[in-house]
């Protein structure tokens, strides 16, 4: 089971800026749509290892990126990959 931090933002501009800022620090981040379990809004969020969240939060605050929420996301990545699907 992998544990991730999902950082959401008030605006897409902040999300894109967060990506830019975090990428510069060599943090392992992914920009993904906010998972359905956290919000039904159409938005981007940053996904990073849970252990990295405090460092990321500091970097974002230093760069005046406003964070909305930080969620803890537990996910069985291997099981997700093996989930059933069909070709359409």
């Amino acid at each position, binding site marked *: 089971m992998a544990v991730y931090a999902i950082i959401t933002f008030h605006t897409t501009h902040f999300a894109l800026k967060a990506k830019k800022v975090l990428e510069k620090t060599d943090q392992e981040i992914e920009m*993904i749509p906010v998972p359905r379990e956290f919000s039904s809004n159409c938005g981007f969020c940053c996904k990073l290892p849970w252990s990295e969240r405090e460092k990321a939060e500091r970097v974002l605050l230093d760069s005046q990126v406003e964070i909305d929420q930080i969620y803890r996301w537990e996910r069985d990545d291997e099981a997700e990959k093996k989930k059933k*699907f069909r070709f*359409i």
Partner: protein
Amino acid sequence: MAITVDARGLDCPKPVIKTKEALEQAAGQPLLVMVSSAASKENVIRFLTRNGVAVERVEERGGEFHIYTAGCEGLGQDVQPLSPGAEPQSADCSCNSSQAPSWPSGRGTVLFITRDRIGSGSDELGMSLLAAFIATIRELSAQPRTICFMNSGVKLTVKGAPTLSYLKELEEKGVELLVCGTCLNYFHLTQELGVGKVSNMYDISETLLKSAKVITI
């Protein structure tokens, strides 16, 4: 009882042609195709998959490959070349939608990615949207059979691209990724390809024309 296609020792494209003939003659029956090179094996598997025939297993025996298909009903008609007026489905076929999915004039959904971003207005937003789109597709329960990449779309498939790991996952699931070789060459990215098969205009055009639905980005 499986129909056996012995294409050992034959050069490409003969194994594919023999497989096609067998499918046409023995619609619905499982096939065993024997080939003697890895390239022929790949080509035959690709041909079968593209025509909706599931490959059940492949056995390697002393440099030979034995490809077994699952039962494949009604494929004979689909592998025949399309000719005008030969449309096998008519309007009333839609009534049968509760049965196996029917593809009016082709099979499956193809994603045709012709650029490295979604839409226009903001390049930064467009690139992030496309990466998020690919990331999301891999998690859906319905997936396209094939994704074709052309022009700057090929940039999604190269080493270092944020989409690389997502595409690798899709490929592992069996989604076919066809990457335009001419385009890789144009962007000097041939050596950087990280996922998918280098493909050409013939394969890509055929894939698009034979599919039931093409979604173009």
